[in-house]
């Protein structure tokens, strides 16, 4: 177990290093920089050139990369040109919004997926199973941005049930109960929009997992011994089918990252996804590189966690 974990972590290091190089060069290859298109007749070209020089934009690429990567190891992601703040600080401001949104989305995803999957799998080929299957079909087909746009319009605007932007009501004091409630209230609609779509694959997986387990020998054996149907499901089938699902949450992370870019933009939710797009447009390169790196590492860690859980659940995996 420990060697497995150790080996996995060891593999991560070159992966992250390579990732950092790729990201750095992609970011540098983007046309323009933070000072492009800055038109203020009062600011002469010398002033702009001086800024470029100060930001090190004129250094050769390997110097720039070396400076960046060495600072990175000291936990310094550089300075955001647009925000005039250390990148770590600006990311820290937004990261938590995205983090909690993702947590809520995950909770909702499982809250929806587990009952639906269980019903669908246990009573397969009944009416309710077909309705659920129908839902998963549509969920598979509907792109998340179209669905989110509709949700925003119906529940945010037409019905006015949810706020249509921001992460918290202005003026609420951090740390109070009403602050917490306001946060959740602002997250609910975005999280639900995403969860309703992302949950379908989990529903489908759970369904087929249960249908599989149902026909396994130990279930048949239990049944032949006269164990009650409820008990069979509770003791044997559910537990066996739910464990792999639980392990999947690590893999969900990369999906959530992709989704957050759409969701945060549609719901004007000030998180990392929104920060990424605006920094990209403004060529705030240090933020862009830091974010891509961060997301890359998040999905590596997610995969690692899932692999570890799976290897505990199913020791065969460890052998690979």
């Amino acid at each position: 177990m420990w060697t497995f974990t150790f080996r996995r972590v060891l593999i991560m290091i070159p992966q992250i290093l390579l990732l950092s190089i790729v990201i750095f060069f992609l970011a540098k290859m983007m046309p323009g920089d933070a000072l492009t298109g800055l038109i203020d007749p009062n600011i002469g070209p010398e002033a702009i050139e001086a800024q470029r020089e100060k930001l090190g934009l004129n250094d050769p690429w390997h110097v720039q990369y070396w400076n960046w990567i060495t600072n990175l190891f000291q936990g310094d992601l550089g300075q955001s040109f647009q925000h005039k703040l250390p990148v770590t600080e600006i990311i820290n401001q937004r990261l938590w919004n995205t983090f909690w949104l993702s947590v809520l989305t995950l909770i909702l995803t499982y809250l929806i997926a587990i009952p639906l999957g269980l019903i669908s799998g246990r009573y397969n080929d009944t009416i309710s199973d077909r309705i659920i299957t129908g839902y998963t079909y549509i969920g598979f087909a509907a792109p998340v941005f179209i669905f989110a746009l509709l949700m925003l319009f119906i529940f945010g605007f037409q019905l006015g049930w949810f706020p249509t932007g921001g992460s918290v009501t202005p003026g609420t004091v951090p740390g109070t109960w009403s602050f917490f409630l306001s946060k959740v209230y602002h997250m609910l609609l975005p999280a639900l929009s995403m969860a309703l779509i992302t949950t379908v694959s989990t529903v489908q997986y759970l369904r087929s997992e249960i249908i599989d387990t149902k026909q396994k020998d130990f279930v048949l054996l239990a049944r032949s011994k006269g164990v009650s149907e409820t008990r069979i499901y509770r003791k044997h089938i559910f537990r066996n089918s739910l464990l792999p699902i639980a392990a999947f949450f690590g893999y969900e992370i990369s999906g959530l990252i992709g989704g957050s870019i759409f969701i945060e933009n549609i719901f004007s939710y000030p998180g990392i996804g929104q920060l990424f797009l605006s920094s990209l447009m403004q060529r705030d390169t240090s933020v862009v590189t830091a974010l891509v790196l961060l997301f890359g590492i998040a999905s590596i860690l997610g995969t690692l966690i899932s692999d570890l859980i799976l290897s505990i659940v199913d020791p065969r995996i460890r052998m690979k």
Partner: protein
Amino acid sequence: MSKVPVRLLFFAIVLSLVMVLAACNENSTESDVDKPETDVEKEETEEAEQTDEPEEAGGETEELYSIDDFSNIKGEDETPLEGGELTFGLVSDTAFEGILNYNFYDGNPDVQVLQWFDEGLLTWDENYVYTNDGAATYTMSDDNKTATITIRDNVNWHDGEPVKAEDLLFAHEVIAHPDYDGIRFDASLRNVEGIEAYHNGEADTISGIEVVDEKTIKITYKEATPSLITGGIWTYPLAKHIFGDMNVADISSSPEVRQQPIGFGPYKVESIVPGESVVYSKNEDYWRGEPKLDKVTLKVINPNVVVEALKNGEVDIVDSFPVDQFPDNADLSNLSWLGVTDRAYTYIGFKLGKWDADNGINVYDPDAKMANVNLRKAMAHAVDNNTVGERFYHGLRWAGTTLIPPSHPEFHDSENEGLPYDPELAKQLLDEAGYVDVNGDNFREDPDGNELVINFASMSGGEIAEPLVKYYIQAWEQVGLHVEMLEGRLHEFNSFYDRVEADDPEIDIYQAAWSVGIDVDPDGLWGEQAAFNMTRWTNEENTRLIKEGLSEAAFDLETRVETYKEWQQLMVEEVPAFPTLYRAVLVPVNNRVQNYAIGDGTGIYRYQVGVSAEEPEVAE
């Protein structure tokens, strides 16, 4: 078999749902089409401010509006309450950056946050000339080189400390400091006597600035120009008792700029959710008097939801409003609309030379593809910008004539017609200049008989961007010119400027837009030494007139107006670029808001803003 029907049913449900949705929308458009008549009536009866009712150009929702029909002031039509709260919407699809100090901020989102709690020492009138109505008064010396600024006695920072002359000196020192990380150390600050020496570390003090007493400061400038009193003085003090001990490099990220910013404006910052919202409370000690409102909340509103937020009263005022959404919402019952001519224009520029970086000058190339002035004139005459403004912008943008926009009423030459739409004239000009179709492909060749393909670069991202470019290309095709979009597509903001600024030889003409400063002087945009003069065109006459506009003689307003008239005419004759569209800024205001104004020199200040009801009006 049994499984199929249920899923088929689902298919059907989705379809019918979508149809219902479509039907709903159809209804709303139909009713929308019905609206215009009632709309016009309402404007006649309710909107006393409007002098003319908008003309109607037949068709369905295609109403036309004119900026002349809008006022930029909402006065007091009802008595404001004592106290009350107001919500200000900052329309942006990104968060505001939160550099909340005039000495460090970068641009638009942050300045909207700043305006509520801080201000400059001097205010200006509608011609952008400094007045003596602000927190300080000023006098200019006889040689127009030295400004003496006296801060009023009752002007205090939010923490109660008086705003002192040394605070303004400190602002100069910080901005000129080598570690300063903002963008304010610009040409007008470099004009301060001795500031360069201080910047380069050759002097410990700025020799041109003298603190006379606690409230009086004298600033001497290297060059006396009329521009000095139209924005040429840095008037934003920096609280020395707070920032004085900090390293200059750390100020912009300090909590006193970010979380608890300080100013001396009508409101104080109560709390900030970074990038999202700010809550202000009233500054009872404000020097003009106690502000009306108890509390102001500023929050970022996505342009996509701004209409809804205004309709349900979630916000009372917004800083800007997407013009394309105006016609559909012109008749909202709970809003009044303010309008003003924007200090900006869109233009099409011709690439006519190169930037010589070593000498810092524009070098005109007489052999450039677009060097024939008649070709340029013809291209300007070939496009119908009034129709563009009417069709795409419902009259809220209109054909530009000269390169000094009407937002500067003193200097804009309203008699100069520019190069109006006249395709026949365009054809004639081209014929005369020798641009004729010799190979029968319906496109003109250049005078030497070579095929002429003009590459047009334009930015993506604007609402109407692509159709507009397409329209221009079609219009040029009508007069026989073969114009193509550069690489067949629009270019994203950064790569567009990257290439235009670098004089990419692939680009022959380009479309861009910019705001002009409050100072009318065109040197920074069109001068010989202006890096932003991306046409790279210049000639002696241009240099002479620009210089004259800043000369001693130009302190006489008449002379200055004449000079800029000549300059506008020169630019019309030489057409290195021609303005395509002038634009209007429209801002909706909830009916309960009193004493609010946009634009410059209105004489209405933020502390006067009040509300006439506890709750915002909601659209019917």
